[in-house]
């Protein structure tokens, strides 16, 4: 066996990891099934809901809007905001009315924004136009804010208003792939699998032989990093396939795959003009990419910590620490809030990157958050790789 095959065996192709991946596959599939079917109240209710949606698909029907809005208002009064989710599970018609009424709200927001929108992050064609007008009246046409609002307005115009469609499978799937759940279900096990990559050598004492061998300083790092990337890809694909299977089995339909991303509740304000299947592809690529990024980060931690449990603990702490910090980011000043957007937990969540228009001022240029996140990850990953090579070159056994 070559060095690469040995390292792959140590990290991935061994009984312990294969059993773990198999167990995780089952767990992910069951979780996907439950997370998809539970909010919809099971297949029968979903089918009834689907037939109602099909009648209104991709339309803005004023009569239906009035009926649904009234029904939604009644339900809120009757059950309270928080209980609606529980009630609609057993009442497909109510579920449809709630969804349609929410769609109508989103449609209105597309033009007029929402009172919930932050002052410095306006939304809605008319709001944007009005803000641009005010800036121009003040003679600040060359300001970054003007440039940003113009850019946002042009994106909103080109993407058009949200459409109504049955995207239940994709709502659930994108939530599993792009929300905080992915951090817990996917990246925690990834940390467990990757953490030993370097620290195992010190903890077993094999570093004596590795460091004194011809390939023990550079080639071993190249090989280990390649195995980390392969392992993280396999772990991510295991998650994607299992959750996809679980979600699909619960509904038995791909319906909604070819509609615009903006028909999915979380991404109703998405700044990219892609369809649902295209976004599914982006999600897969982003998860594989961010899996590689986190894999390298765990390897970086492992290269500095000799104890296996400590390496895993630090990896997990970085992830959960950043989750916690990001959760409280709203309380911090604007600059710190922006820095928090580059915490690992935010960078790997698709919903943080693609659910709304968010840009940064880089030397006066309007750079979308997702593009900057991509560049940031590439730079950080590259720096960590160089640091790992450096650590291994300088590593000693005292």
């Amino acid at each position: 066996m070559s060095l690469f095959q040995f390292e792959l065996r140590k990290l991935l192709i061994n009984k312990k990891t294969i059993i773990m991946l198999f167990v995780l596959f089952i767990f992910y599939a069951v979780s996907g099934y439950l997370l998809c079917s539970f909010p919809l109240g099971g297949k029968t209710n979903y089918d009834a809901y689907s037939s109602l949606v099909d009648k209104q698909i991709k339309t803005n029907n004023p009569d239906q809007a009035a009926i649904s809005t009234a029904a939604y208002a009644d339900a809120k009064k009757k059950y309270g905001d928080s209980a609606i989710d529980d009630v609609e599970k057993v009442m497909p018609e109510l579920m449809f009315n709630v969804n349609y009424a929410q769609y109508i709200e989103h449609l209105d927001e597309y033009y007029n924004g929402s009172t919930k929108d932050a002052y410095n992050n306006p939304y809605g064609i008319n709001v944007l136009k009005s803000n641009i007008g005010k800036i121009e009246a003040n003679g600040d046409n060359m300001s970054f804010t003007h440039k940003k609002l113009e850019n946002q307005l042009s994106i909103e115009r080109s993407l058009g208003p949200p459409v109504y469609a049955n995207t239940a499978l994709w709502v659930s799937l994108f939530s599993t792939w792009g929300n905080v759940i992915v951090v817990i279900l996917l990246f925690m096990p990834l940390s467990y699998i990757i953490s030993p990559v370097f620290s195992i050598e010190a903890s077993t004492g094999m570093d004596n032989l590795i460091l004194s061998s011809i390939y023990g300083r550079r080639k071993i790092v190249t090989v280990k990093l390649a195995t980390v990337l392969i392992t993280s890809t396999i772990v991510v694909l295991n998650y994607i396939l299992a959750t996809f299977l679980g979600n699909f089995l619960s509904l038995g339909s791909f319906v909604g795959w070819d509609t615009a991303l903006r028909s999915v509740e979380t991404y109703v304000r998405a700044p990219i003009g892609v369809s649902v299947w295209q976004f599914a592809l982006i999600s897969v690529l982003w998860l594989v990419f961010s899996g590689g990024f986190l894999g390298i980060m765990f390897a970086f931690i492992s290269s500095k910590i000799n104890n296996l449990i400590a390496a895993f603990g630090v990896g997990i702490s970085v992830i959960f620490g950043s989750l916690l910090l990001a959760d409280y980011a709203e309380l911090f000043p604007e600059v710190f809030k922006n820095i928090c957007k580059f915490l690992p937990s935010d960078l790997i969540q698709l919903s943080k990157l693609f659910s709304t228009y968010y840009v940064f001022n880089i030397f006066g240029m309007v750079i979308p958050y997702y593009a900057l996140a991509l560049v940031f990850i590439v730079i950080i990953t590259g720096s960590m790789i160089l640091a790992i090579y450096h650590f291994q070159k300088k590593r000693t056994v005292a």
Partner: protein
Amino acid sequence: MELTIEGISKNFKDKNVLKEINIKLENGVYGLLGPNGVGKTTLIRILADILEPSKGNVFIDGENKRTCGDEYRSKIGYLPQEISFYSDFTGLDYLQYVSALKGLSKNQAKNKIDELVQSVGLQDDLKRKAITYSGGMKRRLGIAQALLNEPKVLILDEPTAGLDPYECIKFRNIISAFSKDRLVLLSTHIVSDVDCIAKQIMMMENGKIDRKATAEEYIKSMEGCVWICELPMDKLVEFQKKAVISNVIPKGNKMEIRVIDEKKPISNAVPAIPNMEDVYLYVFNYLSGRDA
């Protein structure tokens, strides 16, 4: 092959573990002898390129280790004091893994492993998990891995720890045969590991190597310093406190003792022929005790 150690010092925080070591080694077996904790392993680790000296340089055939990098490590074989294994690796996996680390091709590795397992007597145990091996088998596996790349310089740290007497003899024979046209540096605190096979023995004390000579030269220098005498049993304990004793044999109601001393220790003492164990005691117990 020439290995030059030039002004090597190593500090761990405030502790000066190695102090300005200067030695030049050529082909043959060299013993590095000294009690535990004098800095032998630190020096060995520096030579194995897994520890950086605080000061000084190591040259291999005139080339500085720092600038040689990978090439330096391709020329050495290293057996660490403690041999470690991955829990799921068999003996064969272990040797194949080390072969891969040493850059051997699959064919080269197979041939070399076949040859080495025969000479260390592990051919029937290669498919067993290495962690289940006995201490001696682990040591033999360690020796085999150190020889995989046919190193020009073989560095062995306490190689016979855990070996039974037969295995020790077998090990010495392997090393002796291997040392032809090569340099072997063997660090130990066991005199018998080096006294018959070492071309030269270096005595290390307090991070310094002050003595470097052949076993014969050491023994010759000890003439008149080893004595055999008899003592009544009840006086032995008191005598032990002030003398360096290398051996005690009960003889009837008296004890025959072997004493290291530059002067005649008691009136009935007769001179004895020194051996390397006496030399060890003389250097590390008698002289250091006197200096202290």
